[in-house]
């Protein structure tokens, strides 16, 4: 059996077995009308690095290597955020879980804002271009003015 056939057989077996599982990951993957097919496209995309795909897979399956999971797996005692603890030693450190890393960790605020702006910039550009509803005189009904602020953003 070739490698390709083997992979396809594994994928098919995994899909058939999915309904038997009832854990959080299975529930997440089985939820309908939540754009799960796009995740499939992401995995198929060869431009996305293997490590990026692995990190997403770890996030979906709640296995991302962070202190909260390390503690759960009994690899270490503390579940405190290592970055918060190192950079803000006087403040109480939060639990280092995926939610904290992606949304709250103070030391990762800048990449978080950049990510938000990057996606939003693209989204509003597409909406602005494709909002084609027109008035009788041919002018566009919706206008999307550009914010002009150069003030540094804070969360």
């Amino acid at each position, binding site marked *: 059996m070739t490698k390709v056939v083997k992979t396809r057989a594994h994928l098919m077996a995994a899909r058939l077995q999915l309904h038997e599982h009832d854990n959080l990951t299975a529930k997440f993957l089985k939820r309908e009308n939540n754009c799960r097919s796009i995740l499939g496209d992401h995995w198929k995309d060869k431009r996305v690095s293997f490590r990026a795909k692995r990190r997403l897979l770890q996030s979906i399956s709640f296995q991302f290597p962070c202190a909260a999971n390390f503690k759960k797996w009994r690899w270490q005692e503390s579940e405190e955020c290592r970055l918060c603890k190192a*950079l803000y030693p006087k403040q109480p450190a939060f639990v280092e879980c995926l939610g904290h890393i992606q949304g709250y960790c103070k030391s990762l605020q800048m990449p978080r804002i950049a990510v938000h702006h990057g996606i939003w910039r693209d989204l509003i550009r597409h909406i602005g271009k494709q909002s084609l509803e027109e008035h009788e005189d041919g002018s566009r009904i919706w206008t999307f003015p550009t914010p002009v602020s150069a003030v540094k953003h804070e969360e």
Partner: protein
Amino acid sequence: MGLMTNTQIGRSDVGKDITLFHCAMGYWDADDLINPKIQAFLEVRPDGVAFNVIAWICAFLEYTRQLVSRDGASEKPDLYTGADWSLDRAQDKDLEKDTRYARHLEYISWTSRRQGTTWTTAQYNFTVGVRGSAIEAAWEDRLTKLGVNSAKTRDVIRRQAIRKTPQLSDVILRQFHVATHTSPKWALQALSTTSLTRPPNDLNSTGNLWEISGLQYSSK
């Protein structure tokens, strides 16, 4: 309101108007310490605004990277929660955003009525989970309301935005990984400030994820 951040012109008049509105609605008392409240009111800034010049609609646009789904509630520190878990997390986040801007939208309607115009207000939220999850019906509805008539185009816009979310969210995970394995201080300086201040709908931007994050797309 954030549109006014750059200029002080007309600010005192707007401040008076805001005070008048809040006192008329009974939100503030006249003897309250008003100035910091006006400042806080003006500092709230939606991601974007859109105007429908035919139907006289002023819409606030909001994009949110939602943290985790309800299923992943245990992943979230208890300290941050307090949300109504009977709702889906995306709906919950939308409600939170609606509440944040409700008074601003009310203020716009109130000012419009006072000046004899008929502007109505709306808010369109675009919410995506960091793991690439989004409610298809909600996106369809909001894009249709914003005049994107073609179903195929709506689908393309939705798919692009949703695909980009896990792709870009990976930047944060990478930075976390590098910072924990090298120096935590590196995380504070890894991005240039220009990526944080550029106008959100700068039409010249390609929106390239590595361009905005200032990172090279390596296999790390």
